[in-house]
């Protein structure tokens, strides 16, 4: 098991948002966390990455308890995170953005840079452009590219499709499939449950901070209860 999240409880100050969630991701998986608004999806992901302190529970990554590590240390262990907003350095060039992504993995930077450019050729074309001038889809690609620069084992994305057009979203999901085939597992939080489940081999449906259904993506898509309550019929 690559990532094992056991019964985590977390939230802000006095309110508990994630109330005993379990996730487990194997190598090569595309896992996706879906659920209604306010179910605690993003909070759970932030807690896994160490951005929010966990009140109880454990995060086990590569058979190692990383619950007490800070985000930077988790990056060193092979996790990588793409935040939902502000996920690029607006005033820096595309290439500088990627360089900053590789800040702590300087040794394999050139190799990773090449990989990212192969994956997203558009970034190679615009490498000296200022990131703030890119289109929405290109920004999202850059954000994913930046996260890949650390050569992660597990790539986590927080609502990558928020604010982009359906075509761009489809393209992005395709790229995610490519990334997972290259050996990086993916954990993604998505609002667009249907499309996300289509590409995932694992799905977690969250409600009120708890796991409601865990199954393969396909099974969840066919589950009539899930369809009615979460996928709009």
């Amino acid at each position, binding site marked *: 098991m690559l990532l094992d999240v056991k019964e985590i409880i977390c939230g802000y100050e006095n309110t508990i948002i994630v109330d005993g969630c379990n996730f487990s991701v194997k190598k090569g998986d595309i896992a996706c966390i879906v659920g209604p608004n306010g179910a605690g999806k993003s909070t759970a992901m932030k807690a896994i990455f160490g951005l929010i302190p966990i009140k109880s529970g454990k995060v086990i990554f590569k058979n190692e308890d990383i619950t007490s590590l800070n985000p930077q240390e988790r990056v060193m262990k092979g996790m990588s995170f793409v*935040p939902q907003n502000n996920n690029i350095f607006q005033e820096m060039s595309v290439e*500088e953005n990627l360089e900053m992504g590789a800040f702590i993995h300087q040794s394999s930077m050139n190799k990773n840079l090449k990989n990212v450019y192969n994956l997203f050729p558009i970034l190679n074309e615009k490498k000296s452009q200022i990131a703030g001038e890119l289109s929405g889809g290109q920004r999202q690609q850059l954000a994913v590219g930046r996260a890949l620069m650390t050569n992660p084992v597990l790539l986590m994305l927080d609502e990558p499709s928020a604010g982009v057009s359906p075509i761009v979203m489809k393209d992005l999901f395709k790229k995610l499939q490519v990334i997972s085939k290259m050996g990086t597992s993916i954990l993604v939080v998505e609002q667009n449950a249907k499309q996300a489940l289509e590409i995932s081999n694992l799905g977690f449906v969250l409600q009120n901070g708890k796991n409601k259904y865990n199954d393969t993506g396909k099974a969840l898509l066919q589950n009539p209860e899930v369809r009615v309550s979460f996928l709009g019929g």
Partner: protein
Amino acid sequence: MEIINAFALIINYIIIPGLTYGCQLALGALGVTIIYTVLRFSNFAHGELMSFGAMTSILITWIISYFGISIFPLPTVILALPISILITISYCLLVDKFCFKYHREKNSKNVISLIVSIGVMFFTSGLIRVLIGPNDRTINDGERFIISAREFKEITGLTEGISLKLSQSITIIVSIIAVVLLFWFLNKTKTGKSMRAYSDNKDLALLSGIKTENIIFYTWLITGTLACIAGTLYGLDKSYKPFTYLQLVLPIFAAAIVGGIGNPVGAIIGGFVISFSELLITFSYNKFLSYLIPINFLPEGSLQLLSTNYKIAISFIILVLVLILKPTGIYKGKLL
């Protein structure tokens, strides 16, 4: 010939002093801008940090001169500069550790850091006056002129002379070196880029493994260096008076804001905008025009937009106008 004389007049009274003062302002504004982008507050103590740098330069110059070392015709202070830069940096780091760090970690409002910087300003100005006294000190013990107005007139046969002080050319050369190094650092080195990344998007920078402490360290390293160089150059050019540095704070802010605070290129442009407008607005154009148009056509009275008494006030007026009309400045800077 008349036209050349007019040009000589402009070069002597506007271009050379404007470039010198502009360089001093630009170096100061760079320091303010860098603190603003990385630490997110307006550092009112910057003038006093410059003064501190100039003071250490003087103290070290005294020690060097005591041993009889001199690099005439250059002023001895050039030798002292590297050491005083180190001392100023250490002072900046200490100040940060004891004053700003706490509020940064507590996530206080940035106005609080601004008020803390006023405390630092008081403290530093007191420290300087206790250590070196409030009096006027001359730093320049080197050659005064590279070319004096009289020599220039003799060589060229013009009626207008151009004088170039050694201190002026040192100011311009040192500033160019400092700015080139700064831009090389910010744009080409990994650390410099990480500083820009941190000021651009702090959270993402942290996610990328950039460490806050390192960024803060380099920020003060650069600020201390710039402050020390700017302060020493200003003292070298005009003679060192501790109280003048407090008056320099607003023109420096003006330069940074006119250029667009948070933008290093803007800070430099802003410095020159301020220095040249001060000179151009208070310059009396009578003599200049007398070379260009027949005397009969010359208007009576002084052709001066504003009396020289208002020289420094011009920077304040520009500052206020920019803040009101276009707070982002020439190059779009950051807004709070």
